[in-house]
């Protein structure tokens, strides 16, 4: 039983559950709410906030997991969002290395810069695997809108990702 609880409370399970929650928001409410015709990137928000909350390596892993889950419901090649979101998570975590105790505004800025980079990087990655016609001027509108949205929600989501990524103390006790 203790082992079962340990599995349930592990960061992997938590990230998976948070991912399911984020994906369901992405495909329902944020699929309807399209400011300026742009689909807001909730999965990307969770990916970059993982980096801010858990560092570059955790950010890369969690970002890859979120991207992979997103790919599973899209028609784009499986793994493409995974690698882009993984990179965004890594980038967000890496930026925090330079600051001892990042302030709230720094976290928001990191999330916004990582988001913009990922939104531009995705059509470029599509181009690499042979999907043409996505890298055009519309990407700028997408990047600006997604960046602003992710900046607004950066702090609460970072807090949520901190809960998901940091190993709980009780689990450590059970594991002994």
């Amino acid at each position: 039983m203790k082992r079962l609880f340990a599995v349930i409370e592990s960061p992997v399970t938590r990230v998976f559950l948070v991912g399911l929650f984020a994906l369901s928001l992405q495909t329902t409410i944020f699929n309807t709410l399209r400011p300026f015709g742009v689909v807001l990137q909730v999965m990307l928000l969770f990916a970059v906030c993982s980096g801010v909350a858990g560092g570059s390596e955790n950010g890369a892993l969690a970002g890859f997991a979120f991207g992979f889950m997103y790919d599973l419901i899209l028609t784009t090649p499986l793994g493409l969002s995974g690698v882009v979101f993984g990179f965004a998570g890594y980038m967000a975590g890496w930026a925090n290395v330079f600051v001892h105790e990042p302030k709230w505004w720094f976290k928001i800025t990191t999330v916004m810069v990582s988001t913009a980079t990922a939104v531009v990087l995705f059509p470029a990655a599509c181009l690499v695997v042979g999907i043409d016609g996505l890298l055009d001027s519309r990407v700028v509108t997408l990047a600006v809108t997604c960046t602003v949205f992710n900046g607004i929600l950066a702090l609460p989501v970072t807090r949520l990702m901190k809960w998901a990524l940091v190993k709980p103390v009780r689990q450590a006790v059970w594991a002994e």
Partner: protein
Amino acid sequence: MIVVLLLTSTLLITLDMRDSGFVGGIRDTFGAIFRPVERFTNVVTTPISNAWRGVVDYAELREENLALKDLIVKQEGSAIAAAATVREAQELLALNGLPTLAGIDSVTAQVVGQSPSNFSQTFELNRGKSSGIRVGMTVTNGAGLVGKITDATLERSVVMLATDPEYAIAVKVGVCPTKPAPSTTVAPSTTAPELEVGTATTTGSELDPGLIGGPVESADPDATTTTQTTVPPTTTTTTTVPPTTTTLPLATTTTIKGFTPFSTTLPPRPGGATQITVPETGGLLPRETGAMEGRGIGRTPIIRFIQSSSRLGELCQGVPVVTAGGSQSLAPADLVVGTVSRVVNRKGSAGPLLEVDLAANLESLNFVRVLLYQPATEIPR
């Protein structure tokens, strides 16, 4: 760790692009886990979505509703003319044992969701493999071509729109109609003009309404009439058609997969005289075939590989575009795609590019029809 992630991504992309069954299995399993969560979230968030739509779309919906009402009134007449033309075409095709769209079974499905991505242009339908839908099947609506099925689970399927950059299909382009000089010919005669059986006529309103605009079944050689013939670019005709139901004969044989020799009961002809506008017949003649490719969100598809030769006829705006068909094509022949909206001439032997206005409004899809016709190129090996 980062290297492992990169390698994993590369492996997954490679497997997916080679249509691996492993990747399909993962997608199906994840779909089974995710659907209940999505359904629950949908129930919870629907009020918020509706409130958002109410705030953002209300004025637009009111205007659209009024415009649509006007459009319906205008199209009622045209639909009657189109039904008569389709009936004639199907009768001719049936007589020659050729396949028609009427011979292909179809499934009506509702659009239940669109892609949660800014880059892929897909829609989700509420029907899947259990309704006979398979990958590669063509999707249409009342207006014309919509796209093709790219993924199908038991109860759901995903449609890639014709505007997606990955979508390409062979099409036929109509020839630009020659512009006749606006003239009126008055031909007083003591004998009836020579009329061929089956020729459509355009006459004044004094003549027998039963004959006006329809196929001539017989020409009375003893009649003495004065006929006034006007040849305008578009012809307005008054049609009276008795309400009947026609059962077409069985076609003989066909080699097209998914096509069943048909016995089609056409809808009854509408009764009463109606003022209708028939499009110029010149625009319906095919000029040549080309390849139509999507170009992404907000951009019209283009047609390549069209020759710029006056021998084949002029290219111009407004000519119809229909699917070319053929054993390797994604869709059966003569499915309405849209009209040419712009001709872009290019230097050298590249030939012109044609921009196409799709007949189907892809912005507001609700119910669509999936033709249960799987092209040979889409059948899994």
